[in-house]
């Protein structure tokens, strides 16, 4: 019945940096509502999307993540009034850089998920997991990780 019951050849590793006040609570609610999703995601709780430094995203891939999710409060709902607005602008530019160096943009995801959007949390996790599973391990990037310098 569920996705997780089927065995797959490749189980992607997904790292999620989420805001404590919206997406983390949305994930809590998904739990309370028993909304099942694949177990590939590892959630790191941070106070606010404003706290999420781009280096953390790079670090996640360095640690072998196949995809990264960054998620926080919808615009206007930030617990700290504007942390998510700062984050949004930063990500917009950071994505440009990632894209420019040829990073596979299908492996980095940004969402707004509120404390009430348990269903959306579930759907996002299912989507990302399936998509990443279809993409396979990020071999191109692994190569860089291991390639010694000349």
């Amino acid at each position: 019945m569920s996705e997780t019951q089927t065995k797959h050849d490749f189980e992607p590793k997904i790292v999620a940096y989420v805001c404590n006040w919206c997406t983390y609570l949305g994930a809590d609610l998904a739990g309370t509502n028993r909304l099942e999703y694949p177990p590939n995601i590892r959630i790191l709780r941070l106070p606010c999307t404003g706290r999420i430094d781009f280096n953390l995203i790079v670090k996640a891939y360095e640690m072998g993540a196949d995809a990264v999710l960054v998620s926080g409060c919808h615009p206007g709902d930030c617990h700290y009034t504007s942390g998510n607005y700062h984050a949004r602008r930063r990500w917009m530019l950071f994505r440009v850089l990632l894209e420019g160096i040829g990073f596979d943009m299908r492996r980095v995801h940004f969402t707004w998920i509120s404390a009430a959007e348990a269903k959306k949390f579930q759907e996002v996790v299912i989507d990302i997991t399936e998509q990443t599973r279809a993409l396979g391990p990020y071999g191109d990037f692994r190569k860089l990780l291991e390639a010694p310098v000349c």
Partner: protein
Amino acid sequence: MRIGVFTCWCGENIARHVDCQKVAEAIRNLLGVHCSVDYKYMCSDPGQSMIREQIRNGKLTGLVVAACSPHMHLKTFRKAAEAEGLNPYMVEMANVREHCAWVHHDREAATAKAIDIIRMAVAKVQQNRPLAAIRVPVTKRAMVIGGGVAGIQAALDIADAGFEVVLVERDPSIGGKMAGLSETFPTLDCSQCILTPRMVDVGQHPRIKLHTYSEVEAVNGYVGNFKVTVRKKARYVDITKCNGCGDCWNKCPQKKNLSEFDFGMGKRTAIYVPFPQAVPARPVIDREACTMLLKGKCGICAKKCTRGAINFEDQDQLITEDVGAIVAATGYKLCDIGKDEGRYKGYGEYGFGRYADVIDGLQFERIVSASGPTGGEIKRPSDGKTPKSVVFICCVGSRDDAKGCGYCSKICCMYVAKHTMLYKHKVHDGQAHVFYMDIRAGGKNYEEFVRRAIEQDGAEYHRGRVSRITEHNGQLIVRGVDTLVGEAMTIEADLVVLATAMRPADGVESLAQKLNIGYDEYGFLSESHPKLRPVETNTAGVLVCGACQAPKDIPESVAQASAAAAKVMMLFARDELTREPEVAEVNEQTCAACFSCVRGCPYKAIDEADITDRQGRLIKRTARVNPGLCMGCGTCVAICPSKSVDLAGFTEQQVYAMVESLV
């Protein structure tokens, strides 16, 4: 480190899908883990006792509880640790219930994930440092900004509770809009009769310091410790010498100035008391109207004043007040529909400002008020005739996205009904017409009141808007429609009263910026939560009440003012505030002083600071966090290019340790 890891079964909740014993087993071998146990209910009394025992016996220095969401029980376990003398911030939770057992049914995968989640928590706790709650002293003195009915209520409540209050009012007298109203709905009791005693209470209260004719210039500090700079505008009258005898204003030759209190319906002198019951009952000189101040000629008031209270050399003064909490009660104004102003477009079709007999609701209040320019006799402005036919138009500027504001001003339906009644009570052979779109009379005795206006006092209500007002031989021709009948209609009126939209008072945006609180697109101040925190703002220690937050009538403003006062008293009930220690801190040695963090901080909690040597010479500049203001979002951490800011509780060390544990 000696870390204890406690994995909870949560009865069946976790254990059903996660093999808790296997988890405990796997964790036991991690570096730094002293003990790892699993138990049926960690949050239960026996569960907590077991944890406390382990802390004691195992001399644990860090704790991970793998159970439910930290939003559920982190506080519980931190308290338990604290009771054993372990710093509460050395406790972390691993969420293996909501984020694992409840959402994954593959026992093997869920168990593996649970182990990962706990490993992250263990990695984090290894980097945790004991933190001490931040204690800040509280200055038990409040400031109320705005001396209308809301501000008066808040000030009196706080002062009566035994705390000092500084009340700042922009106008020369307190009283606000309510002081100028005639009678109030739905009881038709006299507005001044109920308000002026309260004004006197304020004026005489031993714990209320009143700054009238003053404005807030700057706000510094944070909850419990605000420093507010107040500009006391030059009044040109020394109110400590003046006894309010009236010799000055009675003799002032400049008598033709429009009275602000009468909304331009009456006149006043250049030196004036806004209205007889003003508090303080001391005059002020209008520097735009006084010929002495403008041209150096006249000075009659000074000659007449036996107490030498007139001082033409008076200057604005800046004073600083230390307060622990601030209540904003700056109230409203009516939309000036005569002219374009930003998003508000003038209503040229209604001829407001062009036809003398088209007036707004507050002007009508003055015309029917016993203390008004006509002594309570209803006379129209153009020729003083008693109007035999009056048209009242609702929703002028309100509910009008094209020209005014999209919101409903809430009080107009009621005061228009009141106006028709007051009019009928004074002009028995007169006819009141009302053009309305919907009648919104939700409130105790409100609907009954409107029905009385229609049924007993014979006001003619027409459902529809007015399109145009023209004037012919001193008669106003009102072209409207009754959509219920389905017919356009024309009414010849002697007077037209527009129920214009309520807007926040002028300058409220700049005040909001000084207070660092939010405001909506119209300028209404934002509450922290529309339902559960209706008088708090997103800045701790700053509260809002009255019509500056949204259109409100008197009972609502007063209720909100008392609520704000209660919040202030809660704050003042303690000698010091404790705040979460999870705040940012700057490494001043490595800070490059680019001040991006200063720009980015949502709370203006970071300042530019100088580091000097003993001789006071500048060594370097740095950013510095004010822990009293910091709310711990960490935006500065991400902004800082050299990573010279860190956030306690979510330090770079902690977060990197967590990510690295995922290998």
